[in-house]
Every structure is written in structure tokens, then in C-alpha cells.
């Protein structure tokens, strides 16, 4: 059982989920409420990771963040090293890769909020920001929690992008899924089996916990 890999996976998934909650929220808000006619282009870009093979996405991230390109150069000049094959690079790639898993459920949650409640909030003197925090967000917690859970779970299970961008550096970029792959390649089926089982149980428990509690707490004001 490779605890180092387990911890690394957890650290990555928690970071990705947290970042996506903050980044995904404004994107989802814009996607839901904007009346811009070219909005669909943005929606399509956000949804790209859903259909792209992880290797394609990983390839572009690898090249884009590499020392030959603008983003990579900029990063290198500020932080003194390149992003690929570091935890930071892995994190950036994972955030991009899980973006739709966060934005889409959050946007669906926003979309389900009755527009008349939003209008009522305005007529009661609340600004758009106040309306968001006091009406829209509290009424779409299910969407936000789903986005959080899905981006977490999706990151735990990702493989292709990690291998392309992060490589396989113990303690830095070797996540559980890579570790299982390594152990299987090396015919260490016992270890692979153990790690896989732990991953399976852990993922299940987290999902069950979050779904269970969210339904209970959110159900409070819905029940009559």
C-alpha cells in the first residue's frame, strides 16, 4: 500500500475541488445569466474536456506550459522552474480537466432558481451580488455540492492527463491511479489490489457521505 500516493491523490483532489468551487462559480453564473449571443462558444469550450481524450488535453497542456511557449515562459520567469512534472503543473492540468464537472452542475443549480425570486430580491433593494449570496446560492446548494463532489471524484480517478503532464515522480506526481498502474505492470497484484480497493471504498464513502448529508440539510425547508 503506497500511502504516499494516496496522500498525494487526496491533496490533489481536495485542491482541485476547492479551486473549482471558487473558479467554477463565476463561470457558471455567467453561463446561466448572460444574454450574450456568442455564449455557446464559451459553453462549448468549457465542455471540451468531457469529450477530449485525456491524452489530447494533456498534450496541449504539456506543450503550452512548456518552456517554449508564452504561458510556460511567463511561469518560469516568475517561479524559476517550468510547470510540467511538478505538483503545480499537475494541479493546473487537473483543474482544466475537471472544469465541466464543476461548472455544469453549478450552472444547472443556478438555472433551477425561480427568476421571480431573483426579481423579488431586486425590488427589495438587493444588489446583484447580494442577490447572488442571499438568494441564488442558498437555493442552489445541491448544484454546488454536486459540482464539488464530481470534481473531487473525477480528479481522484484521472489517469491520462496525470501521466502526460505530471509524469510519474514519487511523492510529487505519482497519484494512486498511477501507482496502481505501476504495481500492475510490475505484477504486484496484491499491492495493486489493496490500493484499488482502498480507492474504491474511499470514493464511495465520500460520495455517500456528501450526498446523504446534503439531502438531509437541504431538505429542511423543503419539507412541509
Amino acid at each position, binding site marked *: 500500500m503506497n500511502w504516499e500516493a494516496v496522500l498525494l491523490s487526496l491533496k490533489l483532489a481536495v485542491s482541485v475541488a476547492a479551486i473549482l468551487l471558487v473558479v467554477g462559480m463565476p463561470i457558471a453564473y455567467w453561463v446561466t445569466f448572460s444574454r450574450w449571443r456568442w455564449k455557446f462558444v464559451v459553453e462549448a469550450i468549457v465542455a471540451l474536456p468531457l469529450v477530449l481524450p485525456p491524452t489530447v488535453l494533456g498534450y496541449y497542456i504539456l506543450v503550452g506550459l512548456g518552456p517554449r511557449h508564452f504561458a510556460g515562459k511567463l511561469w518560469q520567469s516568475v517561479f524559476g522552474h517550468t510547470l510540467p512534472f511538478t505538483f503545480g503543473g499537475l494541479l493546473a492540468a487537473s483543474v482544466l480537466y475537471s472544469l465541466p464537472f464543476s461548472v455544469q452542475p453549478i450552472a444547472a443549480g443556478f438555472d433551477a432558481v425561480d427568476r*421571480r*425570486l431573483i426579481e*423579488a430580491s*431586486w*425590488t427589495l*433593494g438587493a444588489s446583484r451580488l447580494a442577490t447572488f449570496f442571499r438568494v441564488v446560492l442558498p437555493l442552489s446548494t445541491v448544484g454546488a455540492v454536486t459540482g464539488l463532489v464530481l470534481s473531487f471524484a473525477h480528479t481522484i480517478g484521472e489517469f491520462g492527463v496525470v501521466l502526460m503532464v505530471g509524469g510519474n515522480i514519487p511523492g510529487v506526481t505519482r497519484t494512486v491511479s498511477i501507482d496502481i498502474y505501476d504495481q500492475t505492470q510490475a505484477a504486484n497484484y496484491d499491492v495493486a489490489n489493496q490500493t484499488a480497493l482502498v480507492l474504491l471504498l474511499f470514493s464511495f464513502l465520500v460520495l455517500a457521505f456528501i450526498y446523504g448529508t446534503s439531502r438531509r440539510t437541504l431538505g429542511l*425547508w*423543503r419539507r412541509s
Partner: protein
Amino acid sequence: MALEVAIEKRFQGFRLAVEFKADGAPVALLGPSGSGKTMTLRAIAGLDTPDRGRIAVDQRVLFDSERRINVPARDRRVGVLFQSYALFPHLTVAENIAFGVRQLPPDERERRVEDQLASGHIAHLASRYPATLSGGEQQRVALARAIAPDPAALLLDEPFSALDTHLRNALERQLRETLATYRGSTLFVSHNLEEAYRVCGDLVVLAHGSVAARGPKEEIFRHPPTLEVARVTGCRNFSRTRRFADGRVEAIDWGCTLRVIQNFQKPPEHVAIRANHVRVRPWEMSDQKNTENLFPCWLAAAAEAPFRVTADLRIGTPPTNPTDFHLQAEILKPDWESLRIVPQPWAVELAADRLFLLPD
């Protein structure tokens, strides 16, 4: 304390052009569905933007297309009681009412909420969630929430449409009480004329996106300026007319000639009378020599309500089938009970002072 509205907005196949004033006393915006009532209300609240025009409350300009002023809804201080109430489901009754007074100091905020809970008779519901309230309770909470910030104008969008009849009466009385102490302008949107008549002093009648009549309610009910307004105000008996001389008109659709009092510069197109002004008696009991506009009539059909009967009557000759009638009369139950056993024809009187003539 005045609300001034003069707006215009074009939609596909519909043009809204509305102009009216409301000062002090509640004004009813009356009209059939699709006449532009809700659009007008949304424009005043700042939820929709007119193409052209001006909206002002107490001389404070909220919208002026020429001066490019368009105050956002949150700064308009216009309270809205939505048709669906739009209570926040995740907040308690007290929190819903406090929503609009958040910027006040805590003790003042507390006081406002307490006041509204007390005057709306909903103090016992303070910590309940909207989903646990009945329709009438939700309506009272929504009204309290709209009034709590002390808005400059209050817009009520069909506030009773979702309620049972027996609830309406009590809530309507409470609304009248509340409005009596409210100092801003009130606009009451409704398609129910009796309700509008009871709650408001002045009426603005909308038809097809424009104002068909406005003024004191008694005036509009007594002399509807057009056929459309007569319909909206509940009149059901109309006849086209021919000839107009010596204070008499021929009612083509009713097959009779009527004396009228009203004077018209140009010939009227229609003569009309309200169903509750049509008087029906046994023929023997009528004074045929000294009563004007008295005709023999036959019953085509009758619809009985608990306390009154709507009788479909035909003037001059007996009807050939139940839909063959000229006008409707509202008759009180006791009168009906004694009338129905008398042989027909009966006598119908269309009193000259109850008839009105409509140009159009």
C-alpha cells in the same frame, strides 16, 4: 404622493402604450388578460425596460428615455406583491420580511419586522418557512415584505388570484386596512372588476395595450366610454342601434325602440344595460301605460346561483331554443321564486336612466 406613467414598448404583434397618473388613493389597473397590465407593472418596477417614455414617483424620475435615465429595480423603492408571492423558500417569515430592510440599524430593522408581523396578523408565523404556510398566509407575508421597506409606490399584481373565494373576503378587507395607512401610491392590477371596485377609487382600464378609460370608478361604471370598457366593467347586454332622433333609438338586436336620456353629438353605435339593472315583473303587475321602455318578454334559459338567478330573456316573441335570447337579467332569488310560477310573457323594463349609449 404621485405615480406618473407614460410608456411605450413594442413586442412582436403587440404594442403597449400606456399613460396614467395615480395620486394617493389606490388606483386599479383593470383589463382582460393580455391587455398589458403585468407588462406595465414590470416596467414601473424596473424589471422590464420600455422603448420610450417616462416613469416618475413623487417627482423622482425612475425612467426617462429622452434623458437616458433608467434607475435599476433595486434603487427604485417600488414594492411589488407578486402574483405568485415569490417568497424566499429558504428564509423564515421574519427573515423574508427583514430582507428589504437589511441596511437599517438592527433595532430599527427589528422594529419594522415586528410592526409588519403585528399589522399583518402573522406574528405567530414568524419562524415558519413559506412552504408550511397556506396560500392566504403566504399572501399576507408577501404583502408585509413588500411594505416593510416603506416603498414610494406599491404594485399589487392580482394578489387574490390564487386564493379561494372565502379567503379573498378576509384578505381583501385586510388589504384595504393596510392600504388606508400606507402613504405611497398604490397600483392594483386585477381582472376582477368587483375586487378592483372595492379596493380602489380610480380605475385605469387597459385594452389591447392602451388605456381605454381612466377616472373615478363610479364615473367609468356609469358611463363607460367605449364598448370595450363596458365589457371590461362587466356589462353583458349590448345591441346595435339605428336612427337616433327625439331621444329615441332603435335597438336592432333587441327588436325594440327605446327612449334614452343621454345626449350624443354623433350617433351611437350601441346601446347597453347592465344585467342587474334589467327589471322583470309579471305582465299583469306592470303599469303598461305609464312605464317607458316596457316590453313583453319570454324566458329562454335560467342559470341559478345560490342567491340570484341569471335569466336569458327574449323580447317580443317566444324563443325557439335556449340560446335564442336578447338580454340577460340578474334576479334575486325571492323575486325569482315568485316570478317563475307566473305565466309568460313577463314584462321587462329597460329604464332610460340605466341605459347607456356607446360610440365606437
